[in-house]
């Protein structure tokens, strides 16, 4: 009886001593910093996609410690947060938005960075190429091929002049403009660049823009984000088509959206983050975009602007917003 008891105790001790190192390693808290450029809806949705996917794969809280920060569209605040993350010795930093990613990638070289919602990481010099960043970064792009946008616009209405609203200080916004400029001759649509440097001048410039163009493309610009309802109102009244690749803007009554689903982009980024957390080098993980895009129409705006929606176009719409 005693022998059996002693044997059992020894086995128990042996088992405990075997399991213990494994347990310690598994329980060691991973520290992940999450940085959002602004509070725009697409970024929030992206963040949600990331956190949920991480959770599904066993890296949800409390297994990891998530520090989520939002720069609120301010470059000054962005710099502060970057400094804070650099000092905090994170295991991984997840950056959402082109501007946020550029800031973090420039400052932090010894911590893996997984980005998301960066329109064109190569164009803005975050990565060497799409297959390998060649540095401590990897991630997912929200990019919708400009050809898809031009095609969609052509299918909806015969537009000849397309104004692109952009913000010179935001790289993401400029990249989208440049891509459109490159393809303008292919679709015989003249791209008219409209720089917006602050919210106040939008109301002054926009009426003349609307007078001279058939459609307006809304790039990923914080100023556009802030003034979107006014832009849409003015355009819709003048029967000018508004189009974007950002799904949150469609929810704010932009007429047409050819969008990568922000939530899906987030989930894709989270899967890459898990690989990194499990030991893969970021440079070994290719940067990807989604393959399927949503074609969204805001029917309220369509009605308000009395736009004629071709039936064939309506059939290809994947999502209708009320």
């Amino acid at each position: 009886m005693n022998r059996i008891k002693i044997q059992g105790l020894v086995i128990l001790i042996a088992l405990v001593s075997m399991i213990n190192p494994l347990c310690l390693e598994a329980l060691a808290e991973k520290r992940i910093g999450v940085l959002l450029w602004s509070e725009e809806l697409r970024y929030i949705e992206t963040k949600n996609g990331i956190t949920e996917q991480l959770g599904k794969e066993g890296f949800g809280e409390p297994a990891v410690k998530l520090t989520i920060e939002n720069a609120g569209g301010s470059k000054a605040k962005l710099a502060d947060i970057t400094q804070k993350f650099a000092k905090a010795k994170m295991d991984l930093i997840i950056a959402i938005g082109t501007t946020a990613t550029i800031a973090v990638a420039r400052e932090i070289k010894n911590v893996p960075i997984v980005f998301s919602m960066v329109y064109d990481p190569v164009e803005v010099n975050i990565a060497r190429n799409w297959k390998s960043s060649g540095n401590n970064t990897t991630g997912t792009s929200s990019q919708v091929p400009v050809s898809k946008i031009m095609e969609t616009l052509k299918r909806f209405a015969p537009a000849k002049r397309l104004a692109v609203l952009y913000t010179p200080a935001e790289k993401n916004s400029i990249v989208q403009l440049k891509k459109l400029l490159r393809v303008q001759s292919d679709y015989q649509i003249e791209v008219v660049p409209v720089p917006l440097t602050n919210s106040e001048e939008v109301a002054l410039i926009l009426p003349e823009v609307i007078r001279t163009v058939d459609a307006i493309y809304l790039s990923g610009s914080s100023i556009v984000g802030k003034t979107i309802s006014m832009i849409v109102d003015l355009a819709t009244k003048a029967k000018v088509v508004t189009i974007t690749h950002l799904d949150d803007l469609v929810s704010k009554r932009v007429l047409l959206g050819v969008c990568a689903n922000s939530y899906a982009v987030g989930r894709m980024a989270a899967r890459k983050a898990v690989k990194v957390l499990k030991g893969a080098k970021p440079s070994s993980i290719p940067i990807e975009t989604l393959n399927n895009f949503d074609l969204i129409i805001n029917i309220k705006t369509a009605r308000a602007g009395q736009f004629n929606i071709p039936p064939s176009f309506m059939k290809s719409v994947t999502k209708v917003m009320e």
Partner: protein
Amino acid sequence: MFNKKLRQSIGFKFLIIVSAILLASTVVISTLIAINERAMLRYSLINKGNGLASYITKLSKDPLVVKDRIELDIIVNQAIKDEEVLYAVIQDTSGNLLTSQYASIDYRWPGVRNIVSALPRDSKLKDIIATMKMQAGVIEIFTPITSDADTIGKVTLGLSEHKINQQVVKTIIFIIALNLVVMFIIGAALFVASKKLILDPITELVHATTRFAKGELTTRVEIKTTGEMLALVESFNLMMEDLGKAIISKENELAWRKQAENKLREGRRQLKAILDNIPAIAWLKDKESRLVAVNEPFGKSCGFNPKDLVGKTDLDIWPRDLAEKYRADDKEVMESGKRKQVEEPLTDSKGKALWIETIKTPIYDEQGNFVGTAGIARDITKRRKAEESLKETLESLRKAVGTTIQVMVSAIEVRDPYTAGHQLRSTDLARAIATEMELSQDTIDAIRMAGPIHDIGKLSIPAEILSKPTKLTNNEFDLIKEHPRTGFEILKDVKSPWPLAEIIYQHHERMDGSGYPRNLKGDEILMEARILAVADVVEAIASHRPYRAALGLNAALEEIERNKGTLYDADVVDACLRLFLEKEFHLQRPGF
């Protein structure tokens, strides 16, 4: 707007002048700055264009940054954010525009929007800029873009003339406002400083002067100040003190003068009272014999108000004959310079004839120049009448006495013919001596009256003693020695103008006191008695006497000459000797 007093005050004028100077300087400064500002603005915009060009040059060398025209758009878009810049474009060497419409044109301004919105919707940037140049005042600044000494394009800045002017005006307004503030501060500081340093002391000086003028002679300026103002205040106070003293002494002098004048007036009143009160008329005349002042009695005497007489002459007042006489008197006094006293007739205002005694005296001023005459005249009519009546009385008395003496002489003659002769002869001699001595008629008359009866006392001496040819006994002689007294006793009650009794009483007295009956001497003896004594002795020795023969005239003269100055008066003796020795006088019996 401001009251007159304020407008005339030094402080107000000072403030106005300071404000005017500062305002003028503000205008001048503003104008200069405006001119300069325009040039400066242009200069700074040219610099901006240069800056842009060199920036573009730099960017164009960096293939990483400039990949397409969007970069150029962003650059010009920055440039148009400046107030004055309406548009900014970049052109290549062929003149093609490299920047896009919305990046190059500043749509924020209504002027720009108005011009652009009138253009066709598909207008090119080139056309838009051409229209703007036509319709708005645009100044273009061109700056070449160079790369390695090659010009690769140019930057064109379109500036709004209106906005430049606005900017200039803004600057001017700012400067004027600033100047006004500075002016106000400087003005206020100057005003406060000058008020404390100059205006307050001056105001206080003015107040002090006003107080002084109102009679506060002890008023002084008491303010804290330094330097020249302190010196001014101190000398002002000193001046006030001296002036105060001077005024007080002047007032004292005036009071003293008033007092003196009062005294003078009082004196004059007293003098007038005296003058008016004296029972005489009094006056003052000037050089031309015009009346200067008269007293009350003068007025009464001529029937005029004394005040009306001033300035009149005697011709205006008195009957012509009298007036001319008076004027002649005046003239005499003036010419002789001596006091004149006359008794003269006057006919008063009622036609009454009066006698007046007038005394006229010349008056001289302090330098001794003749200025007029003073006169006083009193009514002597009564005295004059009294004198006349006295004269008459005396004459009648004289006549009465003469008659009485004649009677006595006759009586003596009857009883003692020798003595009677002796008396008459000695009287004649005595009268002659008195005349020789140039004595008064009264003395001579006295001798003439007393002489014929000087031995009347001998009536009481028995005739046998008188005519006794032998020597008299002492008793008899004592009896004879009593005759002057007896004579005195007889005549003492006779009323006479002359001292006849006394002369008779003394005619045997001698100058050395050896005579009788009272042993008088020298001046105790009347002159009439002394003369009579000499004449008595001479006649007695020279003539026959019952008790002896005549001793002769020479013996008589020897006797008097020997005793001249001892027994007999020397002058009398001398006169007697002259009569006999020089003027052949002879003793004889005089007739009445």
